[in-house]
């Protein structure tokens, strides 16, 4: 059932111009950034060669591209997620899913899987760019794998937050703005709150605050460090918001 719903989401996503526009814009921006970084790298390459342990091309070209991609997802995911629940509620098509013999968890997880498979396309396109460099140089595949995993985890937590925002209102635009606002608030507050808590020596609250700081969890993996706590935090954030979305939709059925 989850795959049926995910397939339907993916199919309807690609019948709208929004999905194609998102793919285009993301790819143009990332492509430009990637080429610019590559150009810069080629210029400083001779100076880098004189350093004792110079940073490689993966670190200097691929990593910033992934960081840009993370920022692009911040805009793209709420826009894509608003279609999934808020727009279906406005068009009253959600009734088809609610009347079908499908549990609320399956509906939300199906939509999440649909959104994630679309984001997987973006991640693969991002990955394709550094992989092209394989033709001319040697890449740090460990770092590249870490970056890709980090971007996927980030996409998952953004999607969960976006879907929850989408379940809060029947106005798609409001849902997109709400999702965007929630993500931004989490980025800023998670960051500063975590830092100030740690500065006061409050380790446990600081560790808790890290759950709500998706970018902080992105960093270690983005540097090639497999930080299991950061991975756990990402997964926890994703699961928490998916459960909130399920509860929210079920609350509508219970309370009307």
């Amino acid at each position, binding site marked *: *059932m*989850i*795959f*049926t*719903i995910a397939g*339907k989401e993916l*199919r*309807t996503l690609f*019948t*709208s111009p929004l999905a194609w526009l998102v793919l285009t814009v993301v790819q143009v921006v990332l492509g430009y950034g990637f080429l610019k970084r590559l150009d810069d790298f080629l210029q400083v390459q001779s100076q880098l060669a004189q350093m004792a342990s110079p940073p490689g091309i993966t670190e200097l070209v691929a990593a910033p591209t992934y960081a840009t991609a993370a920022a692009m997802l911040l805009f793209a995911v709420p826009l894509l997620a608003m279609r999934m629940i808020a727009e279906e509620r406005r*068009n*009253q*098509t*959600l*009734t*088809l*899913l*609610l*009347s*079908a*013999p*499908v*549990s*609320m*968890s*399956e509906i939300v*997880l199906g939509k999440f899987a649909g959104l994630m498979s679309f984001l997987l396309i973006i991640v693969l396109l991002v990955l394709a760019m550094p992989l092209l460099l394989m033709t001319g140089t040697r890449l740090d595949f460990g770092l590249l794998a870490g970056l890709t995993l980090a971007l996927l985890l980030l996409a998952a937590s953004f999607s969960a937050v976006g879907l929850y925002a989408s379940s809060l209102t029947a106005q798609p635009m409001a849902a997109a703005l709400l999702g965007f606002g929630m993500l931004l608030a989490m980025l800023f507050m998670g960051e500063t709150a975590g830092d100030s808590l740690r500065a006061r020596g409050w380790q446990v609250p600081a560790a808790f605050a890290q759950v709500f700081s998706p970018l902080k969890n992105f960093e270690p993996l983005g540097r090639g460090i497999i930080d299991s706590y950061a991975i756990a935090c990402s997964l926890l954030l994703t*699961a928490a918001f*998916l*459960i909130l979305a*399920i*509860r929210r939709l*079920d609350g509508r*059925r*219970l309370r*009307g």
Partner: protein
Amino acid sequence: MIGWLADEWRGSAKFPDAQCANAFIMSPILGIFDAYYKTACYKPSCYKPSYHKSAYHKPAYHKASCHPAIPLKTLMIPTDPALTICARGLSRRFGTHIAVKALDLDVRRGEVLGLLGPNGAGKTTTMQMLTGNLAPSAGEIRICDIDLLEKPTQAKARIGYLPETPPLYRELNVREYLDLAARLHRVPKAGRAAAVASAMARCGLTDTGRKLIGTLSKGYQQRVGIAQAIVHEPDVIILDEPTVGLDPNQILDIRALIRELGSKHSVILSTHILPEVEAVCDRVQIMHHGEVVFSNTIAGLRDLQRGRTVTISLHRPPDIHALRAIAGVAGVEAAGEGRFNIQFAPDSDPSEALVATAGANDWGLYQLTPAHSSLEDVFVQLTRQVEPS
């Protein structure tokens, strides 16, 4: 969670070819969500109706089903195998507003039930509750003897629902959409194409399979909506105003379709159009302010109301007392220009005597018509009479 896994396992055994792999891979993941979710949401206190809430202690509510002292399980739910929908004491509140009060509803296989009522009577709310789109504040619903609130997935598989606004994805074509509906209703892969083709044929959509739903006219969209509700051959079909916005020919087609569906399945339909109910339904329930104020079969209605009043038109009207003198006439009211509304005494039909007397006395009788449809009489009488004072 283990219980849930077992449920899922049994569920997948029922649809061996299609669901097995899906269930196997997804069980652990879903298990986590559902386990959480059950403890959080499906707690009896929140899922089951709250009988102890003070809003239900109003005198009108002291029916057995809502009384706090009587636990739900002791309610007498008949276990008739032909009974496809059985609802007892169904109530729904929205804040302080009570949309549906202690509604009882039974539909048997091969029966079409018409749900009538003025706007805001609670018809749509009732249908949303019967299809699991809205949880009732109190009461019990059984679909083919499966409790809708306890086993929503199993019960919903037996229901087809066409809401007021058909839930159509405008960007899919008709065939894709019906295929999706069939998948969602767990039609096994082997029979899916045939199920979609048969639903399209029954709703007259055979030539529109490749058209995008967004480009279809309102009437065809309505047909797609009905096709979506019947594609999985449900035992119960619930249609919320199925003929709204259709042209007269399409209305006749849809009525014929509903009659045909009603011969094999159970159908509940809501409508404002009274002749539609008389043409299509076997039984009618009239709702007003959230309560059932009338429930009878159409045949019973006809017997009850047969020829109660007629209007006659005479070229040469006699004195009104001459009409009153005819045996079986209870009352006569002059309507001007030689027309009279004649009320019959109970259990008598003086039409024949009326015609004979008119012929014998040369009154020039040229028209004799029943004044109202019987259902219209009942409807107007009940929904005006019960107006809160």
